[in-house]
């Protein structure tokens, strides 16, 4: 899945670099899309087309600057939880991927287990995690679990993405599993893994917020729960927007890193 995405975006990249005009066109389309989105939000909110639960964007932004200090401190907590979960999930997934390279028999079994874990609804995992970990740790654990699957898929796909002709070369040169891994599979996989890490950022943020949902005292999650129950819609949306911005920032940062990795190892 990630491999296909990578190939597709690589092709898009080449076509964009053929002319700055095409790039400007694409950027223009993006900006136009954003404007349409913002205007539609505002209009729907003002006219209450979907009821009071959908406030106009300006109201949400007003609310945001009013509650800035509490939202920012909640954001800091969620960022920390999502960050720790992202790092732990990534490391575990990477290690699993490496183990799968060296222990052949584990290769398919590992992915099967990951798929099963990934298809358990988070709602079901939450209570289990809370009974295992303290409430403050549950968000990180849930973030880590959310990250694990995407990164594991990216890692195993990456290690298997070597070109046949390079495999032949390493066979001819008499490379062992370790040399092959270090000098061929790891460099081949790097851009794909970074691509996976990019996709894992929103998963980590979502995991952290859902983890908070199950009774964590701090972070964006509790604010979401409280505002939803009290029907304080502007603050609910302001909080949601904060979470989205966090996701997008992390995603953008890793998109840059991915670009660099593709440039260096592609």
């Amino acid at each position: 899945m990630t491999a296909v995405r990578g190939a597709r975006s690589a092709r898009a990249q080449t076509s964009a670099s053929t002319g700055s005009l095409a790039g400007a066109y694409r950027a223009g389309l993006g900006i136009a899309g954003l404007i349409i989105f913002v205007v539609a939000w505002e209009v729907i909110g003002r006219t209450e087309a979907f009821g009071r639960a959908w406030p106009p964007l300006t109201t949400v932004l007003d609310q945001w600057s009013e509650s800035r200090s509490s939202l920012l401190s909640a954001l800091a907590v969620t960022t920390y939880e999502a960050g720790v979960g992202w790092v732990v999930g990534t490391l575990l997934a990477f290690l699993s991927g490496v183990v799968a390279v060296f222990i052949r028999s584990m290769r398919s079994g590992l992915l099967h287990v990951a798929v099963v874990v990934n298809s358990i609804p988070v709602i079901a995992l939450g209570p289990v995690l809370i009974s295992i970990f303290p409430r403050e740790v549950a968000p990180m654990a849930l973030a880590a679990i959310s990250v694990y699957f995407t990164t594991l898929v990216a890692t195993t796909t990456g290690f298997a993405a070597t070109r046949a002709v390079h495999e032949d070369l390493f066979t001819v040169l008499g490379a062992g599993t370790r040399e092959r891994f270090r000098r061929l599979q790891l460099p081949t996989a790097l851009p794909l893994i970074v691509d996976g890490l990019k996709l894992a950022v929103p998963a980590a943020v979502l995991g952290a917020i859902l983890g908070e949902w199950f009774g964590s005292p701090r972070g964006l999650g509790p604010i979401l729960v409280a505002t939803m129950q009290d029907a304080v819609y502007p603050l609910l949306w302001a909080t949601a927007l904060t979470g989205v911005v966090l996701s997008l920032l992390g995603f953008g940062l890793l998109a840059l890193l991915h670009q660099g990795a593709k440039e260096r190892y592609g």
Partner: protein
Amino acid sequence: MAFQDHALLPWLNAWDNIALSFRIAAQKVDEDRVRSLVELVGLEGFEQARPKHLSGGMKQRVAIAKALALAPDILLLDEPFGSLDAVTRRRLNLELQAIWVEQSVTTVLITHSVDEAVFMADRVYVLSPRPGRVSLVREIPFPRPRDRKLTLIPEFHALTDDLHVALDTQATPPDVLGELE
């Protein structure tokens, strides 16, 4: 061994691609050897360039240098110039001869170009399709070093014509035609 597709690692520069053979063989990289190979294939100044910044011919030269790195007894070249344009291909034919002068190594070159085969080889083996067997062996008597003028003389053409006929008659053997009908 050099492949049809150059098989260079895109994240390594020319120098490191050549040195890769030493590293995988767990030997110390022989810097002098790598340097002399770079000179041999005429890539001085491009040691730090990565494959995507090299032309097709240059990539193939790096691939040949890499194949020569560990001083093999036999050099296997699987259609090394197949993906190059005709002009570059002819130039590299000549360059490969120059390389043989300095590093005389027995070379097995697989090619679809009869001209290339006659121009390069001491002995040409024609392989038959299905089953792949040697159907014809021809000694090529021309002295070395050979230059481009060789391709103009009648003897050269007589030989290539012979080999073309040998290839053409087996290209569509009667039994294959029978299978198709």
